[in-house]
């Protein structure tokens, strides 16, 4: 690594600080319960749940990218595939931690055993829990096969296909969780599945692009293959953002066309910071950057686009959740304001800080010790 010792020390300190503060928030939540969050019976899912969606869907996008060379023979992505697999593992772990820390205190967490002993096959959440469990196992397995250089051996292909299929079904189950909530049209039903698909791709591409650019800037020797792959990733990201814009506009049109009271939450959210960050920073500006062929090959432009997309997508997950539950429903509306003003508590931010620090720590250590730029010999 060409990075100076001062930089390495500062970065290590930052990670330790983030992990320590985040751990404090997580332990407080596990001991004191979700009362330390600002979510309540109207806004019952807040920032940690948005974190789950963001990291979980980013992992789905990354799994697809890491599987493209092995499963579909996209050899031009060899230089970034192992990095994508590692990031898929780290982001999926972060997402699952967000979800776990959004359930309740330790007494509630122990009830998770009933997922196995009292299954409800009609429950989308049950399928989601099972599929994400297997998905996580396959993501780990897939990275291990890649790390051992068994990309195209039977176990490597099995792991890649398994992880790809499970990422698809996990994403599908997540879409069904929201899609079948008939009482809350603000979640956009199954339209959300389409939005999840395009945004999962976009955030996965952005995460991979960002890690590749940063890695390249810190390393002394340039990897020409990786630079070319980044050009392709930038193009794919531009296309994914174009698709995201189309689905985003579909959501807006549907909200206004439906004119039901249940869409009021989304219409209300259109004036929010998260909505505008999602649209402007997350979609429009990076799309404008990536529309230019020259900028798609420029590392600084790639970096800016990737960061903006990730920030925008996170804001988007937050906006999407609040659109469905910011308006009190049924008897909850009695004596309540028309819309609930929800600002996440410091503990909720702490959970996000914890998982983000964890992702960065895993990535930093892996970049240092696991040769994430490795590719099979035939590449």
């Amino acid at each position: 690594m060409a990075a100076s010792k001062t930089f390495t020390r500062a970065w290590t300190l930052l990670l330790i600080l983030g992990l320590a503060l985040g751990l404090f928030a997580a332990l407080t939540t596990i001991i004191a319960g979700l009362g330390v969050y600002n979510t309540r019976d109207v806004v019952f899912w807040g920032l940690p749940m948005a974190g789950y969606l963001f990291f979980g869907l980013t992992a789905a996008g990354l799994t697809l990218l890491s599987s493209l060379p092995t499963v579909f023979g996209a050899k031009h992505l060899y230089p970034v595939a192992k990095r994508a697999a590692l990031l898929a593992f780290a982001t999926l772990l972060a997402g699952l931690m967000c979800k776990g820390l959004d359930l309740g205190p330790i007494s509630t967490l122990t009830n998770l055993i009933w997922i196995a002993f009292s299954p409800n096959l009609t429950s989308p959440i049950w399928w989601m829990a099972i599929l994400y469990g297997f998905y996580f196992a396959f993501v780990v397995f897939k990275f291990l096969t890649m790390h051992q250089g068994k990309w195209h051996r039977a176990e490597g292909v099995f792991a890649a296909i398994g992880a790809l299929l499970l990422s698809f079904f996990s994403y599908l189950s997540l879409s069904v969780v929201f899609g079948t909530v008939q009482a809350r049209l603000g979640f956009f039903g199954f339209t959300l599945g389409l939005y999840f698909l395009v945004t999962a791709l976009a955030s996965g591409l952005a995460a991979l692009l960002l890690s590749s650019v940063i890695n390249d800037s810190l390393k002394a020797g340039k990897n020409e293959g990786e630079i070319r792959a980044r050009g392709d990733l930038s193009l794919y990201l531009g296309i994914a953002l174009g698709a995201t814009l189309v689905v985003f506009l579909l959501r807006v049109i549907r909200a206004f066309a439906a004119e039901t009271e249940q869409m009021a939450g989304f219409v209300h959210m259109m004036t929010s910071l998260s909505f505008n960050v999602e649209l402007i920073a997350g979609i429009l500006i990076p799309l404008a950057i990536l529309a230019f062929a020259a900028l798609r090959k420029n590392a600084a432009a790639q970096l800016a686009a990737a960061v903006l997309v990730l920030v925008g997508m996170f804001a988007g997950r937050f906006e999407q959740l609040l659109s469905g539950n910011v308006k009190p429903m049924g008897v909850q509306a009695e004596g309540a304001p028309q819309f609930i003003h929800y600002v996440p508590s410091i503990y909720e931010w702490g959970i996000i800080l914890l998982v983000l620090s964890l992702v960065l720590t895993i990535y930093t250590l892996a970049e240092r010790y696991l040769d994430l730029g490795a590719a099979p010999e035939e590449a």
Partner: protein
Amino acid sequence: MKYAMVIDLQRCVGCGACIIACKNENNLTEGISWSYKITETVGTFPNVRFHYIPTLCNHCAYAPCVRGCPTRAMHKAEGGITMHDPNKCIGCRYCIANCPYGVISYNWEEPHQQWRQKKVLIKDCTTSGAEQASAYGTPRRPPYENPERGTTLPAERPMGVVEKCTFCDHRLMRGLLPYCVEACPADARIFGDLDDPKSEVSKLIGKYRPYRLKEHLGTEPKIYYIRSFNPGTYTQTKGGF
């Protein structure tokens, strides 16, 4: 057996006795109400009136909360009661997302914590909640706790799980009516078995044109509303321009 409740809106005066009775009977903690009421205001001043719609769990035949619960903590019990087992609840709150009526609550805080607190309001003057509970012989619990609630559910539901109306199943098993029905001074809540054509609920549903909340969602609620409260009169007229 198919339990149902008819709420006669002409009899309901909105006094809230059902809400208080439910809280007492089921040991509800601060901020949670299994039974409540919607106050609807109709018209524009000065031609304005308001009326009450008492609410509780609708014990839907096709309950979205039951369908969506991953561990079957939310389940159907005898008589079509939608019951919840806190010992299986994983706190995911998907039932809250699925319930169109907003009648499921999550225990965000430790329930009845004021009776466990050792902090006093005025030092050397008032006693703490914990001291009071001990003095009443109910350490760490509310002195007014109803132990009978504990026969089918934990008497107090713990932090981190959801809770909702059970039609007072612990009373039904002893041949008693739900306590909100018992406590209503105007007899606006009528409870019975829909499968019995001679029951009062069957008769009332046949006699009046009932409606249920959000029927278009197809959840088949078991709370029926009949009539509406309106003491007003008006001069007979054909209207005009």
